[in-house]
């Protein structure tokens, strides 16, 4: 599989993200994120997993500089994310939101081309290279056939593939994704994870929020497990996703095993370990 980076002049860039005692509090006073610290380097695909409301998206938004932390800081190669000019950071870090809806009838290609915006001067137009890169990203994301369709006419899954192509076309050393496969069928979801893995193997730092634990075990270099605003475990997927962690995080008894394909797998008990687990903690 060819990677998006093959089409650009961008060499592999070193990225080191340091999150130091990161905290985030919403207006009601509720602490969404509590003292999250970690470091990550390029060449790695990191999956953030955890129950709903654990603070996964908040952590991702902080890394992307979309919100300001209440405590602590995020460093990109040693520099605080908030000290970057927005236009500069857009060339270092791209972000795919859970669901992006376009109100007007842009074509799919127009939307994917928007990923090239950070590289352009105000009056300059997209170059042939930008168009070729966008076409390539659409091929990877599986939406080239839709290139000339209106983005408003697409289904949720198709739109998600378009937004994935847009993030790919931004071609940044760090890529952040919030559940990029939530609306995709198995084939497209697997393909998306394979591409993310390829990006990481090619030297980018890819961090994605995800719910599919099997995919996390199969594709990620590292898994971060978050529960109630805290980073509970981080490291090798199969070490992080052990039975005790799954039970603690999701409140269900789980059994892990190796499936006939030789991959990590798990199944869960129907009965909750602690039925009111979520309530007692929130």
């Amino acid at each position, binding site marked *: 599989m060819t990677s998006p980076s093959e089409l650009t002049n961008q060499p592999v860039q070193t990225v080191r993200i340091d999150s130091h005692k990161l905290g985030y509090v919403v207006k009601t006073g509720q602490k969404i994120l509590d003292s999250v610290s970690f470091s990550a380097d390029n060449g790695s695909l990191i999956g953030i997993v955890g129950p709903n409301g654990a603070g996964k998206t908040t952590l991702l938004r902080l890394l992307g500089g979309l919100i300001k932390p209440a405590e602590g800081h995020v460093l990109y190669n040693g520099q605080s994310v908030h000290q970057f000019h*927005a236009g500069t950071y*857009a060339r270092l*870090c791209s972000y795919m939101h859970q669901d992006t809806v376009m109100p*007007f009838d842009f*074509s799919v290609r127009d939307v994917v081309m928007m990923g090239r915006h950070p590289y352009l001067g105000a009056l300059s*137009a*997209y*170059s042939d290279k930008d168009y*070729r890169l966008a076409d390539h990203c659409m091929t990877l994301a599986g939406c080239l056939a839709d290139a000339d369709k209106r983005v408003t006419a697409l289904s949720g899954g198709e739109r998600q593939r378009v937004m994935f192509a847009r993030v790919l076309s*931004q071609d940044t050393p760090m890529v952040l994704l919030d559940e990029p496969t939530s609306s995709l069928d198995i084939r497209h979801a697997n393909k998306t994870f394979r591409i993310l893995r390829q990006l990481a193997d090619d030297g980018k730092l890819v961090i994605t929020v995800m719910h599919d634990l099997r995919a996390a075990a199969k594709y990620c270099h590292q898994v971060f497990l978050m529960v109630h605003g805290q980073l509970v475990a981080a490291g090798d997927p199969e070490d992080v996703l052990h039975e005790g962690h799954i039970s603690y995080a999701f409140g269900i008894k789980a059994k892990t095993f190796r499936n006939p394909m030789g991959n990590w797998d798990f199944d869960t008990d129907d009965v909750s370990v602690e039925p009111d687990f979520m309530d007692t903690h929130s």
Partner: protein
Amino acid sequence: MKYDRRISRQTADQLPALHSNGHHSWLRLILSGGSLLLVSIVIAVALGSVHIKPATIIQVVADRIGFAVSEPDAADRTIVLLIRMPRVIAAVLAGAGLAVSGTVMQGIFRNPLAEPGILGVSAGASFGALLAIAGGLSSFFTLPIFAFTGAMLAVSLIIGVAFSAGHQSKAVTLIMSGLAISALFSALTSLTLMMSNEYQVSSYIFWTMGGLANRRWEHVLAMLAPVLIALTVIFIKARDLDILLLGDEEAKALGVSPNTTRLAMIILASVCTGSIVAVTGPIGFVGLIIPHIMRLIVGPSHRILSIASAFAGAVFLLFCDLLTRLIAWPTGAELSVGIVTALIGAPYFLYLLFRSARKGGGLL
């Protein structure tokens, strides 16, 4: 697997470069729109109670600029330069400015129903105009100044309220404070109307219908800078507007600051609209339907859309105003241009909506 192989064969280098860079399309649009506008201006200046030959118009204009070919007739000269030309150019500027401001407001609020006066400009200008009328100050030049001041006061209040609530310009906050401040100004207007005499009330009502009759070069000059600045900045920042449509956080991740962009665009569009409304009174429909129609024709991309809207708005208002003059000629009474824009605009708008609904698109 078959599918995968097909895709891997189709590498990016083999894909044809379908898109030459975008400069050509907007240059072509400027050239064709510009010629259409020039022809329209000549037609509009030529027609009226006294018909003037296009050749005479060119002769008069050439003489004025300094290319004296032969001395034009003094009466023709007066009609072209002092009566028709300022009115026609005022229509061109007002039409272009309203349409482009409407385009911007629809983009900023991600809503095709937004119009240029959405943030209090209309309500504020109306109150200002009424104060001038009721205060006996409604001369040719004080009324526009009062109306413009009223518009800017209303817009600043709305922006101030929206930004003091959380230091950001969320679209909903802006629209809500816009509604509230507009209602406040409407109430003040009604209150002032109750205390005005019959003559003042009727001249206020006449003002609210919008018109271009008897506009002079001074009026044109008053609109010129705001409209040209708005057009230029919006043209340069068009792609930021496109990206803002993805959503605030999406825009931020692409290096476009949503709050700064929105604030700058709102101020531009409001100053532009305010200066127009001050000169012409409120003219409805141009700022609402022209961007909408142009979006159906040239697509939603703001660089092309703003150019297309500017030309279409200019030509549309020019011909609507021409119609008011032509209808006025035999009957003696002159229609307000706002009536004509609505009478032509509303049915055409409905036709477009139903056509797009029949094609399977939504109503909007």
